[in-house]
């Protein structure tokens, strides 16, 4: 297998574990190279804080579907069923489930499409993309539809969202969620997203929630993080870079791209953004993210200096923000709309 380390111009010395990393690796039963990366990213004590979240799970959250119901009304309805909610500070229509988590997927209100069960981090990409009814939006890896239904809601069911995914099973789930949530403005295409590159300069806004290693899901699925090899991150990064190039091609000049992953690996995030910025110098810029949450993206990590603007990206961590580990950034294709 051809591992694309060269694409990203890295020397793998950075994963050589230090004593500190070996100590944490033994204590938390993770591969030492993974811990070494965390120590380099976060420092020893914060890396340990992150590791203590492994397997602990995350608090559930819901996004109120304002296409169907007002959020106060939803709150009252659920509270009458013993489900207590608390507003998420950084999302007006998002709520933490404080009590009654076990019931949240089994209510009539869920079937009526009044809400979507979703981690708050995953609510951010559509908010950041900020589509309106005037937009032609592409959701590149859309299934099972959390972000697609959110985009449709922000567009008040007008304009067009093209939702693409290749998996037959996941596309079926997407369709069910679209129906349940009362979404009308979506066209679903089941295809390999690479085929979309024929639609050059078509979309005003593109959402790429890229397939990733899932390293940000350490709280939910630590086993899959334990199994990861360094090659996996770079293979994923090569795929993400390819998808981001397609996103660039299909975006109209002046249009915007939001890139996100549920991974905290710089290899899948900052390295990919750095590479795409190098590739499209003066044609693609990072936009500032105006959200009241998160840490800055790294512009220097593992001893590698990256584009300074990458600090405009946003990172979320389970130990700090109580969300999935998440990365998000917003790019604009230079040119006249």
């Amino acid at each position, binding site marked *: 297998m051809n591992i694309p380390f060269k694409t990203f111009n890295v020397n793998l010395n950075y994963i050589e574990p230090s004593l500190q990393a070996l100590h944490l690796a033994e204590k938390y039963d993770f591969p030492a190279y993974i811990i070494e990366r965390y120590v380099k990213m976060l420092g020893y004590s914060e890396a340990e804080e992150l590791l203590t979240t492994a397997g602990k799970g995350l608090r559930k959250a819901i996004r109120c579907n304002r296409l169907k119901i007002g959020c106060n009304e939803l709150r009252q309805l659920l509270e009458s069923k013993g489900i207590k909610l608390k507003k998420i500070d950084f999302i007006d229509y998002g709520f933490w489930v404080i009590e009654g988590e076990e019931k949240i997927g089994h209510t*009539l209100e869920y*079937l*009526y499409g009044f809400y979507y069960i979703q981690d708050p981090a995953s609510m951010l990409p559509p908010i950041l993309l900020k589509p309106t009814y005037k937009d*032609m939006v592409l959701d590149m890896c859309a299934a099972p539809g959390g972000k697609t239904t959110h985009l449709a809601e922000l567009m008040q069911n*007008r*304009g*067009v969202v*093209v939702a693409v995914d290749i998996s037959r099973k996941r*596309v*079926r*789930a997407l*369709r*069910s969620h*679209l*129906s*349940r949530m*009362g979404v*009308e*403005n*979506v*066209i*679903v*295409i*089941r*295809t390999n997203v690479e*085929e*979309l590159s*024929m*639609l050059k300069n*078509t979309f005003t806004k593109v959402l790429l929630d890229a397939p990733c290693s899932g390293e940000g899901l350490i709280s939910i699925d630590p086993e899959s993080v334990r199994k990861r090899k360094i090659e996996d991150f770079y293979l994923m990064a090569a795929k993400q870079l390819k998808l981001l190039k397609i996103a660039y091609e299909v975006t109209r000049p002046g249009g915007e791209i939001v890139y996100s992953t549920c991974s905290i690996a710089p290899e899948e995030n900052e390295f990919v953004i750095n590479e795409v910025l190098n590739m499209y110098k003066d044609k693609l810029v990072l936009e500032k993210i105006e959200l009241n949450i998160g840490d800055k993206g790294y512009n220097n990590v593992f001893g590698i200096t990256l584009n300074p603007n990458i600090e405009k990206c946003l990172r979320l961590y389970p130990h700090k923000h109580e969300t999935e580990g998440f990365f998000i950034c917003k790019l604009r294709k230079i040119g006249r709309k």
Partner: protein
Amino acid sequence: MSKLMFVPITGKDKDKILSKLAQMFGSVKVKEFFKSKELLITRGGPRQEVFIVSNEQFKFIFNKIKPILNKEPYCAGIFAGIYGKEFRPSIEICEKMFRLTKRNAIMIDNHAALLFSYGRDIMLKSILRIYEPLHRIVVVVDSHENVIGLCKLTVKNIKNIKNNNLIVCKNVIDKGWYLRKGY
């Protein structure tokens, strides 16, 4: 089996669909609802599905997806139902039409609503309100007028029935189907 294709519905086929909905919800509102919308049907698949799309969606499908990508959508807009010998409307379109017309529906109590969402039928005693006129296929709503599904009346005149425990409407489809089976 030939390749599945989305094609516009015209002529008799379109009339058949609209007249079925008009029988259920009245012709005025049905006409109004479909005024600026396009109807598409799938041909060549295991079943003929009908979708309602906006002009923008229609243009994107016929100007971009088909000619440039050489693909067909998986689904688009609002799923309106299945076309066959008879047109079978979906919950989605019936929900929209009920919101506009407030007719052809029965309201049931919350306990019965929960049972209906698990696929159960409706007994007379569960009915709280009737939104007349009723068609053979009726919209089922809970006490807050949230649509739970569709049922088929098993009696001719529901108001003449005295036996409270009699099943008066059989479950055709309910929203629990999204969880139990899905598309």
